[in-house]
C-alpha cells in the first residue's frame, strides 16, 4: 500500500468525526481545568468529576425517563461536587491535590458500589429504556459541502463543548467577571484589595469546572453510548488536564489541543486497519506530544529569561562603557 493511499484511507470524514467525538469529553474536562487554573486553583479532580457526571447522567436519564434531563442532572451533580470541593478547600484548607486524589478514588470506587447496591449490577450497567442523545443536524451548516458533514450531525454535548470554548473565551477576556477571575489567578491580593470576592470566584470556577467535566462524562455515558462501566472515563480526565496545559489554559487553545488528542486517538484506532503499525505505538503520540508541549512551554519561559538577561547585560555594559568614556572627553 503506498503512502498516498494510506493517507486517503486514514484521513476520512469518518475518522475526523470520530476524532471530534473522542475529543469532546477531553475538551470539556480541559476547559474545566483551564478555568480553574485561570483563577489560580489546581483542579486535579477532573477525572473524578467526569466519572461522576457519566454516572449521574445515566442514572438520572433512567429514573427520569429523559436523556436531556439526565444531562442536566449530570451538570448539576458535577456542580455539586465542585461546590463540595470548594467548601472543603476554602473552609478546611485541605490541600487541593490531596483533596482531588481522595475525591477521584472515592468516586471511582463508590460509583461501582452504588451500581451494585442499588441496581444489583456488577461494574457495568445500562437499561434498554435509556435513549442515547440524538444527533442534531444544523440547518444551514449541513448544506455546505465538506464542512457540513464534518461539523453537523453531532449531539448537543459536542456543540456545547465548542460553544463552551468560545463562551469561556468571551467570559474570560471580554467580561467583567472573567477579568476578575484572571485577576484572582494572577495576583490574588490585588483582587482582594479592590473588593473582588476571591472566595466567590474560586467557588464559581470549581462549580463550573465540575459542571463542564460532568458534562464530558455525560457525553461518554449517554451521549456516545448508553451504559456505565467502572472507570469508564479511562484516564480521559487526566488527558484533559494535559490538554489544558498544552493549550496554555486558553479556551480556544484548549479546544484545539482537545481536538488534537481526540484525533490522535481516532487515528490510532484507524491506522491499524490500514497499516501494520501497532496501535500501542500510536497511542504514545498524544502523551509524547503533551510532554513535548510542556517542555516547549518551559523552554520558552527559560529562553525569554535568558534573552532578557542577555539584553540587559549588553545594555548595561554599553551604559557603563558610555559613563567610563565621558570623563575622558
Amino acid at each position, binding site marked *: 500500500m503506498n503512502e498516498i493511499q494510506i493517507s486517503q484511507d486514514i484521513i476520512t470524514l469518518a475518522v475526523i468525526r470520530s476524532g471530534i467525538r473522542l475529543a469532546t469529553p477531553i475538551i470539556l474536562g480541559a476547559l474545566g481545568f483551564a478555568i480553574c487554573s485561570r483563577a489560580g486553583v489546581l483542579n486535579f479532580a477532573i477525572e473524578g468529576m467526569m466519572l461522576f457526571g457519566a454516572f449521574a447522567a445515566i442514572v438520572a436519564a433512567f429514573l427520569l425517563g429523559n436523556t436531556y434531563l439526565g444531562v442536566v442532572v449530570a451538570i448539576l451533580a458535577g456542580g455539586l461536587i465542585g461546590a463540595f470541593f470548594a467548601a472543603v478547600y476554602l473552609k478546611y484548607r485541605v490541600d487541593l491535590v490531596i483533596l482531588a486524589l481522595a475525591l477521584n478514588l472515592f468516586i471511582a470506587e463508590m460509583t461501582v458500589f452504588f451500581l451494585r447496591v442499588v441496581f444489583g449490577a456488577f461494574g457495568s450497567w445500562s437499561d434498554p429504556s435509556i435513549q442515547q442523545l440524538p444527533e442534531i443536524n444544523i440547518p444551514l451548516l449541513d448544506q455546505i459541502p465538506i464542512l457540513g458533514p464534518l461539523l453537523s450531525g453531532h449531539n448537543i454535548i459536542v456543540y456545547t463543548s465548542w460553544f463552551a470554548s468560545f463562551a469561556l473565551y468571551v467570559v474570560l477576556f471580554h467580561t467583567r467577571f472573567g477579568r476578575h477571575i484572571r485577576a484572582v489567578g494572577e495576583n490574588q*491580593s490585588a483582587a*482582594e*484589595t479592590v473588593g473582588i470576592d476571591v472566595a466567590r470566584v474560586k467557588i464559581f470556577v470549581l462549580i463550573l469546572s465540575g459542571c463542564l467535566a460532568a458534562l464530558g462524562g455525560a457525553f461518554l455515558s449517554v451521549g456516545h453510548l448508553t451504559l456505565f462501566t467502572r472507570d469508564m472515563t479511562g484516564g480521559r480526565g487526566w488527558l484533559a488536564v494535559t490538554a489544558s496545559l498544552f493549550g496554555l489554559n486558553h479556551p480556544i487553545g484548549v479546544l484545539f489541543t482537545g481536538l488534537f488528542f481526540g484525533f490522535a486517538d481516532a487515528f490510532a484506532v484507524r491506522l491499524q486497519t490500514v497499516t501494520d503499525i501497532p496501535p500501542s505505538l500510536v497511542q504514545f503520540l498524544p502523551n509524547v506530544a503533551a510532554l513535548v508541549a510542556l517542555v516547549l512551554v518551559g523552554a520558552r519561559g527559560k529562553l525569554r529569561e535568558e534573552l532578557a538577561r542577555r*539584553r540587559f547585560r549588553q545594555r548595561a555594559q554599553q551604559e557603563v562603557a558610555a559613563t567610563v568614556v565621558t570623563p575622558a572627553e
Partner: protein
Amino acid sequence: MPAVEMQGITKYFASSQVLANDAVDLSVGQGEVHALVGENGAGKTTLMNILFGLTRPDRGTIRLNGTPVQIPHPNEAIRLGIGMVHQHFKLVPSFTVAQNILLGIEPSRYGLLDQRDENAAVKKLADEFGLPVDPAAVVGELSVGLQQRVEILKALQREARILILDEPTAVLTPQEARELFTVIRDLAKRGQTVIFITHKLLEVIEVADQVSVMRAGRMIGSKPVRETNLKEMARMMVGREVLLTVDKKPVEPGEIVLEVEHLLVAGVGGHTAISDLSFNVRAGEIVGIAGVSGNGQTELVDAITGLQPVDGGTIRLLRNEITNQPVGDRREQGMAHIPEDRLRTGLNLETNLDENVIVSRYREPEFQHYGLQDRAHIQKLAEWVVTQFSVASARPGEDIATLSGGNLQKVVLGRELSGSPKLIIANQPTRGLDVGSIEFVHRTLVDARDRGAAVLLISVELDEILALSDRILVLFRGRIAGEFQDEQATKEQLGILMAGGVIEEEAS
C-alpha cells in the same frame, strides 16, 4: 470633626506572635496630610490594613466623620471612600493600566467590556488629576514610579476621599518622590485626606500637616508638624533621647577581604539593579552601605553571597575570585551572612534549633563523619549559640517557631558568627528588633570587627550606619553616590546623597 478616628485598635498575630497594634488611637482631620511614622515593624501597615478592611482588629473602634463604622472587607472601605496604595503594589502585571485602575469597577455594556471606553475613562481621570499615564500600557512593563501612579489613580477612580499611602517613597527616585509630594499637596487642596506612612522624617516636614508616631505597636503621640522638629520626632520614634552610639576602638584596617569590581547585576524584570559598582572591605573594619531601600541593596548582597547570578564584574574573597562560585564554597572560605529576611531565608521555622544552627556549617568535618551527622557536636554548637547569645527560652532539639523575633535574630547571629568568619555580610541586622536586642547585635558586630573580621553592613537606618561604620558608602540607584570615612560623615550629608546626588554641587 476628624475624618478618621481610630480608637483602642489592638491586633495580635498568632502566627508570628507579634502584638502589632496595642490599643492604638489615631485621629486624622478632614483634608489634612497626615504622616504616620515609626520604625520597621512598628505596626503602621497593620493599622492601615485595619482601616482598609484587610485585617480584622481584635479590638477597637473606627469612626469616619463621627459615624462608627465596621470595615470587615476592602469593599466596605472603598464604599466608605477609603483608598489605599500598598507598600507592595497590588497590581495585576499582565493587565493594562486601564484594566488595573478599573479592576472591580469596570464599565460594561451588557456585561461586556469595551477597551476603548476603559482607556477613555482612565485618560479622563489622569487628566483631571494631572497624573499622566498611558492607559493601554501593560503594567508589568512600567517603572515602579509609574506603577505607583497607577495605584494612586486606582484609588482616585474609586472616589477615595481618604487616601492611604504606605511608604510611597521607599521605592521612588528623588524626582519621582518630589512629583509625588506635589500630587499629595494637590489632592489635599481638593479636600482629600491623605494618610502617608514613612520612615523618613524629612519627608514629614516637607509634605505633612500632622504627624503621628508609632513604636513597637503603640501610638507614641500625634502633633502638628509645625509644632515639632526632626529631633523630637526621632526621639519619639526610637524611644530615647540619645541616638545610638557604640563604643569602639579606632579602626585598624588589615588586608583586603572582600573586593568588588565593576559589578553588574540585573534586578527582577531586567532593570539595572547594580551598575558598575566597585569597593572593598578590609579585615577589621565595618563598611556601611547607606541608602533608601530599593536602590540595589538586596541585589548587591545576593550577588556577593551567591544567591543571585552576577551579570558582569568580579567579586574576590581574600584574593580568590568567587564571582560565580556556589554559596557553599563561599561559606567554606569564611563568609557569613545575616540576611534581611530572617524568617524565610535566615531560618527554617519548621524544624528545630539544631538543624537551624548547622545549616551553614554542616559540611565541616567537625559536624559529620563519612556523611553521617555528628549530632552530639551539632547539639554542642546549639548550646553554644544559646548561651553565648543568650537566646531566651530556646533549647537544643526543640523547634524554634515559638521564639520571639529578637531571639530568632540571635539564633541567626550566633550561627553566622560561630565559625569565626572572615567576612560578615549583615543586611538590615536589627530590623524589627527592640532596643535591647539592637544593642546586642551592634555589640556583636563590633566585637567581630575587633577580632579582625571584615564586616559589610547594609542598613536603611542611618543611625545604625553612623554608629557602626568605619567607612560609609552611599548606594543610590545601583551606584555608589559617595564615600565617607566615619568621622567625616554627617547625617545631613548622607541624607542628601541618599536622596540622589543633588548634593555633589553642595559638597564641592
